[in-house]
C-alpha cells in the first residue's frame, strides 16, 4: 500500500530490476520512433521517453539517479534525430532532477497528483527545449500555447495510465 505521507523519512523508495531499467526506456524510445509511421501526429503530442523519465525519477526519489536517468534517455532521443545532441538531454536532465526532488517531498502515488505533475513537467521540458533550441542552437522555433496545452494534457492522461502499468515493475528497497 503506497504511503501518502510526505515526510522524507516515510516515503517509499523503489528500485527496478536491470531488465526493466534498460528495457522500458528502450521500449519507449522504440515506440516513439515507430508509432509515428502509422499515426503521424503521435510525435507531435506525445513524448513517451519523457513520461518514462518522470516515472523512474519519481519512483526512485533520488535526484542524482533522476538526473542521470533523464540525461541518458534524453541523449538517446537526441541521437535518433539529426539535430545537435544535447537538446533533449538538457531538458530531460532537468526534468529528471525535478521529478525525483518532487517525489521526495510530495505524494505522487495517486492519479490526480501524477496527472498534474506530468502536465507541469511537460511544460517545463518544452520550455527548456524551446529555449535551448532557439537560443543556443539557433533553430527556428515557434511557441504555441494552444499546442503546448493540448500536448501537456495528452501527456498527462497517457502518463497517468502508463504509470499505473509501470507500477507493476516496482520493487521495494
Amino acid at each position, binding site marked *: 500500500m503506497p504511503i501518502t505521507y510526505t515526510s522524507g523519512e516515510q516515503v517509499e523508495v523503489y528500485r527496478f530490476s536491470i531488465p526493466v531499467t534498460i528495457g522500458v526506456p528502450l521500449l519507449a524510445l522504440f515506440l516513439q520512433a515507430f508509432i509515428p509511421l502509422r499515426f503521424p501526429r503521435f510525435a507531435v503530442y506525445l513524448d513517451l521517453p519523457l513520461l518514462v523519465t518522470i516515472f523512474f525519477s519519481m519512483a526512485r526519489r533520488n535526484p542524482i539517479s533522476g*538526473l542521470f536517468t533523464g540525461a541518458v534517455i534524453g541523449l538517446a532521443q537526441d541521437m535518433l*534525430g539529426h539535430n545537435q545532441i544535447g537538446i533533449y538531454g538538457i531538458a530531460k*536532465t532537468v526534468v529528471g532532477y525535478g521529478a525525483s526532488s518532487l517525489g521526495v517531498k510530495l505524494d505522487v502515488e495517486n492519479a490526480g497528483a501524477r496527472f498534474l505533475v506530468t502536465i507541469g513537467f511537460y511544460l517545463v521540458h518544452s520550455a527548456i527545449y524551446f529555449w535551448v533550441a532557439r537560443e543556443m542552437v539557433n533553430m527556428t522555433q515557434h511557441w504555441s500555447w494552444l499546442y503546448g496545452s493540448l500536448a501537456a494534457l495528452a501527456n498527462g492522461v497517457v502518463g497517468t495510465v502508463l504509470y499505473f502499468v509501470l507500477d507493476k515493475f516496482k520493487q521495494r528497497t
Partner: protein
Amino acid sequence: MDTFIGRYRNLVILMGVLFLQVLGLAVQVKRGNTDASDTRLIRIWAVDAITPFERGLVWMQNGGGNIWHNYFYLRGVRAENRQLKDQIEQMRLDQVRLSEDAAQARRLQTLLAFKEQFIAKTVAAQVIGTSGSDLSRIVYIDKGEDAGLKRDMAVITSDGIVGKVLQVFPSVSQVLLISDQTSGVGTILEKSRLQGFLKGKPNGQVMLEGVMSDEQVAQGERVLTSGGDQIFPKGLPVGTVTSASIGKELFLNINVKPTADLSKLEEVLVLVEKQERQATAEDNTRVRAADILAQRLPQVPPKPAEPAMGGIASPKANGSSEVKPQTGPATGTAPAKPAVAKPAIVPAGASGRTLSAPTSGPANSGVTSGAAVKAKASASPSKPPNSPPAESDAPAPADDSPPH
C-alpha cells in the same frame, strides 16, 4: 568548500551534467554541425539499439498484411482489376501522345547540345522508423552502405520527391525529409518557370522561398525539381502551390503541398546512380495509338487463300468474334501497303463494337468514330485460316507512318 559541495551535492552534480551537455552542444554548434556528420559514431549506438526492433516489426506487419490482403481479403479485387485495366488503356493512349512530345523535345535538345540527367539505378527501401520528434523530420530506411547507399542521394516515391539520404549506416540510413527546416531543394514552377528553393517550416509544412513578390504565382501550380541542387534530377514532381502571399523582404510566401505523402511513407526509392548524357533524337519506341487499340481488340483471323470478297472468316483464334468481311472504306491513316483483302466493317457480337478487316499489315489499323473501331488484322493470304495472328500483336516498331 567540502561542506558546500556536500551540502549541495545534488545541485552540483546537476550543474556538472548540464555544463557537460552545454559544452558538447557548443562544440557542435561551433563546428556548424547541422547534418550530424561529426556525431555519427555516437548516433550509431542509438540507431543500432532501436532499428533492429523496428525492422522486425515492419517485417512482421508486412508479412501479416500480405497474408491477409493476398489470400483472405480479396473483396472488390475483380472490380478494381477492371478499373485498373481501363486506367492502363487510357494511360497507354496518353503515353503515345506524350512520346511524340518527348521525341520532339529530344530533337530540340539535340540541336542545342543539351545534356540530360537520367535516373540510371534505384534501390527500393522500406521505411522502418522516424526520429520520434516533430522537430527532427527524418525517417529511417532499411538499406544502408551494404546496398550501395551514400550521403546526399535523392529519395523519391512514385508520387514525388521525399528527401535525401543524410546519414548512412551499414544496414540502415537516415533520410532527411523535405519538410524539415534544414532541408533545401532547388525547384521550379511548372508554368511560370520561376525558380526557388523548397524549405520545411517548424510546423512541418513546406514552403517555397526565393520568388520575388512582384511575380504572379497561381494557386494549384505544380512545383518540380530544377536540378540546381545537384541532388534531385530535373523535372521530378515536388508538390502544388496551396497559397501565395507577400512576405518579408520582397519575397513571396508560397506554401506548397508535397505530392508525396510524407506522413505515410512506406516504400521509397533511393536514386543511387544518375547519368548525364547528351540528348539524342533517336526514338525507337514509337507506338501508335491505333496499334495500342488494336492489341486490345479481338483479332481478325488470317484469311483463307481464296479471294475474300463476301467470304466468311470463321476461326475463333484469340477468342475473337466471327467476322464476315465486307467491303468498306479504309480509315487507317498509315501509308498504304499492298492490299491483300479489302477492309470491311461488321458488327462484332452484342457489344456494339465493329471490327474491320483492313488491308494487311499492322500499320493499317485505325480508329473510327463512335463505337466503330477498326481492328488490326494480321491476315496473310499464305496462312491457313486457323493459324494464330503473328507479329501484329506486338507494338509496331518505328516506321515511317505518322502517329495518330
